[in-house]
């Protein structure tokens, strides 16, 4: 029997609200498949499963809010028989709720899914929603089986969702950043990196490409960070239970600002193994999904380091706050033409200030310096990235 529990979707998450099941009992699932959509305070996240198996029982109803680690469903392992498996049973679910969830899970088409997701709305709630000019279908219900109650309607009318989301995100950022500054002894380093070669190389590359395949400087920076981490692995991983646990995989959390305000840093996976074109595609996909509020659980839960780029806002350098349990954060300021001395020659070339915030429990400044030196070297050979 496989137990599927609500995973942590970021260090700042304590609980999640099940919005929708994407599977039903009897469905075969594959590792990496999206099985549920869960609302964290930051976004609605597609939650993936990490085992092959067959769904046995769903133990939560859409609309329920539960802490991390709560058992959400059980699955049969490949080869395990349903007759011998023991039903856990869910705590008192009204019969009316089950069909709604099952129908929603079966509908593959987006249009059909929207229809199938029609929520149970109590008649009183529906009438009140009409009076208040609220769309009852769009309210997330807290009643049995995700039913929309009178209270839900009044709550929704009183607090419009976007404001709520922003306040929740602010709270989540506050919790993670306070924890970081309370627990992590940060050290900060910075290095001005000449970007003449990288800028010219990118310009030449983009000249050859149709607009749909153009790359951004941010992609070169991400790849260079990933390659530099291979030489300083003590910056890539997690500080957990009083010790550093290094990560073989390099999943870079990429800080993305949300238009309505706030910030989210989902991961681009295996950055060291992707070429620049693949990375550009991944970045562009991630930014659009982050802004549309549709991220996957693995992207939220497993960044091994974070990169933030505030150059677009015109700042020279950024010294960031590490996102726990990560142990480092790399920042890039604006790429701009500045005076640069090489030997006895003074010239004007594009440069960027790269910075490193490191967790002094996991690494020392000298290793951080090694990382920035390697980063600088890699950015001098853009064609090899």
């Amino acid at each position: 029997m496989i137990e599927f529990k609500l995973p942590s979707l970021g260090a700042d998450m304590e609980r999640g609200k099940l919005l929708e099941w994407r599977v039903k009992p009897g469905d075969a699932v594959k590792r990496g498949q999206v099985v549920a959509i869960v609302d964290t305070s930051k976004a609605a996240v597609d939650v993936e499963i990490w085992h092959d198996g067959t769904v046995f029982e769903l133990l939560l109803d859409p609309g329920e809010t539960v802490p991390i680690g709560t058992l959400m469903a059980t699955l049969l392992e490949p080869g395990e028989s349903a007759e011998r498996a023991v039903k856990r049973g869910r705590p008192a679910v009204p019969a009316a709720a089950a069909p709604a969830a099952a129908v929603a899970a079966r509908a593959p088409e987006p249009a059909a899914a929207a229809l199938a997701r029609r929520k149970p709305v109590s008649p009183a709630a529906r009438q009140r929603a009409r009076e208040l000019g609220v769309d009852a279908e769009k309210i997330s219900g807290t009643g049995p089986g995700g039913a929309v109650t009178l209270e839900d309607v009044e709550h929704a009318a009183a607090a419009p969702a976007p404001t709520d989301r922003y306040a929740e995100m602010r709270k989540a950022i506050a919790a993670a950043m306070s924890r970081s500054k309370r627990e992590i002894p940060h050290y900060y380093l910075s290095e001005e990196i000449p970007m003449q070669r990288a800028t010219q190389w990118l310009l030449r590359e983009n000249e050859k490409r149709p607009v749909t395949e153009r790359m951004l400087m941010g992609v070169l920076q991400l790849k260079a960070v990933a390659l530099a981490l291979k030489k300083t692995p003590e910056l890539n991983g997690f500080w957990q239970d009083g010790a550093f646990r290094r990560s073989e995989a390099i999943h870079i959390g990429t800080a993305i600002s949300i238009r309505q305000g706030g910030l989210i840093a989902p991961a681009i996976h295996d950055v060291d193994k992707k070429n620049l074109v693949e990375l550009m595609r991944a970045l562009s996909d991630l930014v659009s999904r982050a802004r549309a509020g549709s991220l996957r659980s693995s992207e939220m839960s497993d960044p091994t380091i974070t990169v933030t780029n505030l150059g677009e806002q015109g700042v020279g350098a950024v010294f960031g706050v590490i996102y726990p349990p990560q142990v480092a954060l790399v920042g890039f300021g604006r790429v701009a033409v500045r005076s640069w001395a090489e030997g006895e020659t003074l010239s004007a070339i594009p440069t960027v200030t790269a910075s490193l915030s490191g967790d002094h429990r996991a690494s020392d400044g000298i290793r951080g310096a090694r990382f920035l030196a390697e980063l600088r070297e890699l950015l001098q050979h853009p064609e090899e990235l």
Partner: protein
Amino acid sequence: MNESEIRSRVLGIMKSIAPELEEGELRADRPLRNQIDLDSMDWLNFLVALHEKLRVDIPEVDYGKLVTLDDLVAYLRAKLESRAA
């Protein structure tokens, strides 16, 4: 396509990328990036949309000429006219 048509198409595309944009408040002769929150990814998405909707390609070397809405409209008009000719 005349100038006002180009202007309204450009604004439409811009709005799809920056939904918070209030057309009435946009000064056409002031730098766009000072008025709308556009990062390089937004700008690239904007160019991709222009490419798809107006079939105009803007090379990267020309980015620097396109600071205001007026610049953009004039640039696109010249491109579209040279193609029609």
